[in-house]
């Protein structure tokens, strides 16, 4: 493939730089947080380095491919991802009560991670034609809703509430971005609100309890409530300056069930204090704003919606995860981009950033 020389000139070094800095901090943090874990085989942080390098390769490849290519194959990619979700329900591995993983050779991966990207692509494809009038209304929306509900139902079946919530939030973010009539949004909101008590009746007792615990962890003082209080103790005990690299105690003692994934920010807060936490949060802030600017400056609608979808995905992950470990968001299992351990998540995040790069470096090209 012929690569335009101008692509290099316009390559978005800022975006790449910010992402690399966050990911590097992530590796260091993971090294410290898992230092005392008794594990056989390769240490987690080394595995994470491998995933990061693999992800960066994928990211760069994706960035240099003209993103119109993704537009042509958006629906195909969507159906492949959907198919993998169906496979996972039939043949997936069960770990801690949920069936989320597909095993291929020595690797296992979570198809639900790639579904997030594929949904964004499919929605960008659908909305890339502007509405006939100035905004979209309900009659345009059956297909987008179908695009959302199919993967969402399959993911809830696993069950993986966190990812399902991300899909929902990304979906509505995109609707607002492409301009949906406010009255339509209101109708959807009211219908949704009316359906909640109805659906509630179908849930089993333990499922209801689980959902209530998301919103009020104190209902489960032995599980979520306990983890949350330990997370708050960890972060709070870091104070302004932090306890120092490798000096954290709370997270290393294994009080937290997912010290390397969902609760990784607690380790950061404990060892690096307010200063370190604000630095990382600041980097996320830059990443998200940079992405938002890429979206509004894109040269076409597909690129804009695609970029915005990725930004929405990153934002909701960051906001819900950090909000959760700080105790202001429900305790749902949502990992923190570039900081949490996990191969599939690392790669899907970097695919997203690769798409942002692709849109960004082509905004001056016609």
């Amino acid at each position: 493939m012929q690569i335009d020389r101008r692509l290099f000139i316009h390559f978005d070094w800022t975006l790449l730089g910010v992402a690399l800095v966050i990911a590097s901090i992530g590796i260091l943090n993971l090294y410290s947080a898992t230092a005392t874990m008794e594990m056989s085989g390769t240490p987690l942080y080394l595995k994470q380095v491998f995933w990061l390098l693999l992800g960066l390769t994928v990211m760069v490849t994706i960035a240099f491919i003209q993103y119109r290519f993704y537009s042509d194959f958006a629906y195909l990619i969507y159906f492949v991802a959907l198919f993998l979700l169906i496979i996972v329900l039939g043949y997936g591995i069960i770990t801690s009560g949920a069936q989320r993983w597909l095993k291929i050779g020595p690797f296992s991966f979570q198809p639900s991670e790639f579904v997030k990207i594929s949904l964004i692509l499919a929605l960008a494809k659908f909305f890339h034609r502007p509405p006939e009038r100035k905004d979209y209304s309900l009659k345009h929306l059956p297909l987008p809703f179908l695009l959302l509900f199919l993967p969402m139902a399959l993911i809830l079946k696993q069950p993986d509430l966190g990812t399902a919530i991300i899909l929902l939030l990304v979906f509505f973010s995109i609707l607002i971005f492409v301009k949906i009539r406010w009255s339509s949004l209101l109708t959807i909101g009211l219908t949704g609100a009316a359906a909640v008590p109805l659906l509630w009746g179908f849930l089993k007792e333990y499922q209801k309890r689980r959902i209530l615990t998301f919103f009020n962890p104190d209902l489960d003082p032995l599980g979520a409530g306990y983890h949350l209080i330990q997370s708050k103790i960890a972060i709070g005990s870091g104070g302004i300056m932090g306890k120092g690299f490798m000096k954290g105690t709370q997270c290393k003692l294994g009080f937290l069930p997912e010290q390397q994934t969902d609760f990784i920010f607690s380790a950061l807060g404990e060892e690096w204090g307010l200063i370190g936490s604000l630095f990382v949060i600041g980097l996320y802030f830059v990443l998200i704003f940079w992405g938002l600017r890429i979206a509004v400056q894109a040269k076409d609608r597909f690129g804009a919606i695609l970029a915005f979808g990725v930004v929405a995905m990153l934002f909701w992950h960051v906001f819900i995860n950090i909000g959760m470990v700080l105790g202001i968001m429900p305790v749902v299992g949502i990992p923190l981009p570039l900081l949490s351990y996990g191969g599939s998540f690392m790669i899907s995040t970097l695919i997203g950033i690769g798409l942002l790069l692709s849109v960004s470096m082509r905004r001056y090209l016609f």
Partner: protein
Amino acid sequence: MMELNTQRMEDFKGIYKYLVIFIGLAFFLIFIRLWSLQVLKGSDLRRLSENNCIRLRENPADRGMLLDRNGRILAHNRPSYEVYLVPEDLKVNPGVVMEVARLLNIPPEEIEERLRTQKRRAPFKPVKIKSDIKWNELVLLESNRVHLPGLIVDVRPRRAYDYGELASHLIGYLGEIDENELKQAKEATYRMGALIGKYGVEYRWENDLRGVDGGRQIEVDALGREIRPLGTVEPFPGNNLILTIDLDLQQTAEEAFQDKNGALIAMDPKTGHILAMVSKPSFPPDIFARNILQEEWKSLVENPHHPLQNKGIQGQYPAGSVFKIVTAIAGLESGMITPNTQFNCTGAFHYGNRDFRCWKQGGHGAISLHRAIVESCDVYFYQVGLKVGVDLIAQYANEFGLGKVIGISLPHEKSGTVPSSSWKKKRFGVPWYSGETLSFSVGQGYLNATPLQLLMLISGVANGGKQYLPQVVERVENIYGEKLKEYPPVELRRANVSEKTFQMIQEALRGAVNDPHGTGWTCSLKEVKVAGKTGTAQVIRLPENFKRGDMNRVPLKFRDHAWFAAYAPFEDPKISIAVLVEHGGFGASAAAPIAKKVIAKYLNVEPSSPVKAKETENDLDHAD
């Protein structure tokens, strides 16, 4: 390639400033919260972190009880005092281990060993040092509690089986959850070290029996002593199971075995409810719940009589003469014989170049079907078998459920074997020899059945072909006594056999117990008519000149197994029963008297026999 839509891009410009405000607010919110935790509450939280003050204490739920059909308790929970140490708290006061060891009178090395071997333990999780301590030990520990930081004494429910080994195979046992079970548990959450049903009803109804564990989140001081609870979850007890078995009947059945090995299952043929289920030797069901001693485990696993096996559903034995019921039905239904068909028994049947013998030396003479069943004539059935052929007999055996798993809700049920010509071709690659049909038609050779399968056979005959799924649990109730689940009778199949044939067979089975020369006379009762069939399952082939009366001189492990399958009362069957006595010799002398005691108990009649002439007794003691 898609067309570019560069127009209408200004749509996105409009929303941009709202998005900026929204995202800015979200990040500001996070900043405020971070400030509050790390700056405002920072020193408080730091103190909590230094002492590791917030801890969890478990409070496991009571397991559901097991009750007999009349509500008598077979398994329940009793309180047990358990001693724990928190390893993290011991670092400050290493002397505690010595002191606790002294008070409990156990070597300190043993405690150290236990503390060390607890791998992958959550931090500050107490390690169990001794369970079920005595009252005086409890008093000693409690009065010294203040000087022993890191020590916890807690009451825990402990599974108790008041009747010891009674029905241990049906009840099953508990054991510590293993890695695999932890992974597989989908809805229920188990903690490490939890006890989980491993066998029997305890295993199959695990989800009903286990309750929801509770616990407390507590704040402790620097010495690890509880200051105050922060959150409590009350445990919720598991559901109770009302079993189908009758405690009195079960006790009678267990006692009837004395020191013999084998199995007994009694059932209500019209509902499929199991009334008693015995497998001998048995085991004490609580041993796996406590820390089982190495020697105890070894003696159970290496015992040649397999005490851990439920022989009623896991033991597979040649069906012996009980199988003549099937051969007779196949003969009648195929039209190869009629009730009046006669064969001559001279004590042996020459076929090929071999003599196939009848159990009765000298033979039965000219004999028809009724008497052939009553007196269990082998030669008669050799000839019926030859006429009908292996495959048709196999078809009728399958019709009654032999050769496949019945589907009782207990683990590890075996299927047994019903041979056929195609089975043999597949299994051994050689054709069926008609000589083998002779062995097959009297229940020897390749044929294998579990006691449950012969129980299903006799119940089917008693019921005119109808067979019900054998069930061990009647209903599930919660602790308030509300019925949660019920297990109504399930009709499994109806054997495709005519009513006339059944009548003929039933009459013959009654005769086998009640007629003057019936082989099952040791099960006859004064007040009710019992119908049944004896059987002897060969363990090894005996030399041709061997007298069957010499069985007592054969080493025990080579002696034949004794069978008896019966139902009563004849007119309106209320109980069906299958008894197998391993290496017991003859059905009549070993198995039938056991069945008699159980039937008499259940029907509430005197277990005495009508008077019998002495000489027939001796003769029939060795009947097949």
